[in-house]
């Protein structure tokens, strides 16, 4: 199974710009499915970014973040080839993580 | 109402071609099952004809389903009325298909 996480981390000067897209339904719990019943809430709660073991950015999400969520931020102190670890955990306890190199 | 809706509405009505189908407003006696069956069969036949012309409407299918549902509950007044609506819709779709046979050419970009 391919990772649910796509990351682009690009160093520009001293700033590393990070864009992430994650494959996740982000069901709000307010929408009826095809069977006419409410689809239970299923959403990523926490998304964490660590650069070389140091936390740089943490997203706490509720149900109002779009399906296949996207977030962009940037940080100082990144180095070309350095590791950026991205991990998430959702309200059902499911998780995924990936490590990419800063480009 | 958005611009397009307004425009379309005007364009359609300015064709002076509004087809009004009066509904059988007064049904003297309570509808019978036989009467329903006749009305339903007529509606079904008309919808089938629309299908042959590849021009069925979703609303016809919905009216047919409503008719069947009412009949299953024994409400034949309702069932007959829905079947008649279905037939009228199906006939309108047949009419549409027939008139569009040539009318589409008016719309083309040239």
């Amino acid at each position, binding site marked *: 199974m391919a990772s649910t996480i796509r990351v682009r981390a690009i160093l520009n000067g001293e700033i590393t710009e990070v864009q992430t897209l994650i494959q996740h339904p982000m069901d*709000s719990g*307010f929408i009826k499915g095809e069977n006419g019943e409410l689809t239970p809430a299923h959403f990523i709660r926490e998304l964490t970014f660590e650069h070389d073991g140091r936390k740089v950015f943490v997203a706490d999400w509720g149900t*109002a973040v*779009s399906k296949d969520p996207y977030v962009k931020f940037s940080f*100082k102190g990144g180095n070309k080839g350095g590791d950026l670890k991205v991990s998430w955990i959702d309200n059902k306890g499911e998780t995924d993580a990936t490590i990419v190199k800063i480009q | 109402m958005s611009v397009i809706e307004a425009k379309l509405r005007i364009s359609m009505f300015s064709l002076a071609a509004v087809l009004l189908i009066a509904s059988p407003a007064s049904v003297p006696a309570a509808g019978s099952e036989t009467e329903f069956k006749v009305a339903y069969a007529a509606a079904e036949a008309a919808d089938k004809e629309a299908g042959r012309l590849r021009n069925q409407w979703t609303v016809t299918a919905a009216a047919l389903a409503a008719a069947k549902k009412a009949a299953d509950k024994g409400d034949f007044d309702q069932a007959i009325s829905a079947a008649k609506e279905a037939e009228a819709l199906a006939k309108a779709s047949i009419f549409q298909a027939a008139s569009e046979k040539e009318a589409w050419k008016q719309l083309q970009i040239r």
Partner: protein
Amino acid sequence: MTPHNRFPATRRLILKGAGSLALAGLGVISFRPATAFAAANDKYPEDAFKQKDAREAIKLLYGRTAEPSDKVKLDAPEIAENGAVVPIAVTTTLTEVTSVSFLVPENPNVLAAYYRILPGTMPNVANRLKMAKTSNVIVLVEAGGKLYSATKEVKVTVGGCGG
């Protein structure tokens, strides 16, 4: 549940030891130095995410009210092309930013996202949010222990025969 127990700041402070807890218990939250707040905001703000009212959510998140600031720039469309995916971003010239959050008061739950800005990270965040209907979008920026905001209305209409 007492109001104080529902206060995430309280829960955060529990991690920091009995002394802080005592302070929080006395309701003197504003006495905490800003740095303590930033260092403490490492837990998922569960209760804030359940709030139906913006003021309530902000109170739970930050324990204070926000003041509008022209140093906070909220970038959101005039009309959302679709309420399911509304790109919204914030940039700010404020310094010492420790968190950024997005609220949509007309959504069933008003708090959409809360971002912890750690030292060295820029206070600029872009994300995509769901909007149930036309609503203000509020962005809150916590900087130097103070809370600033910017607000913009985004119109949302339902989809149909388009595309």
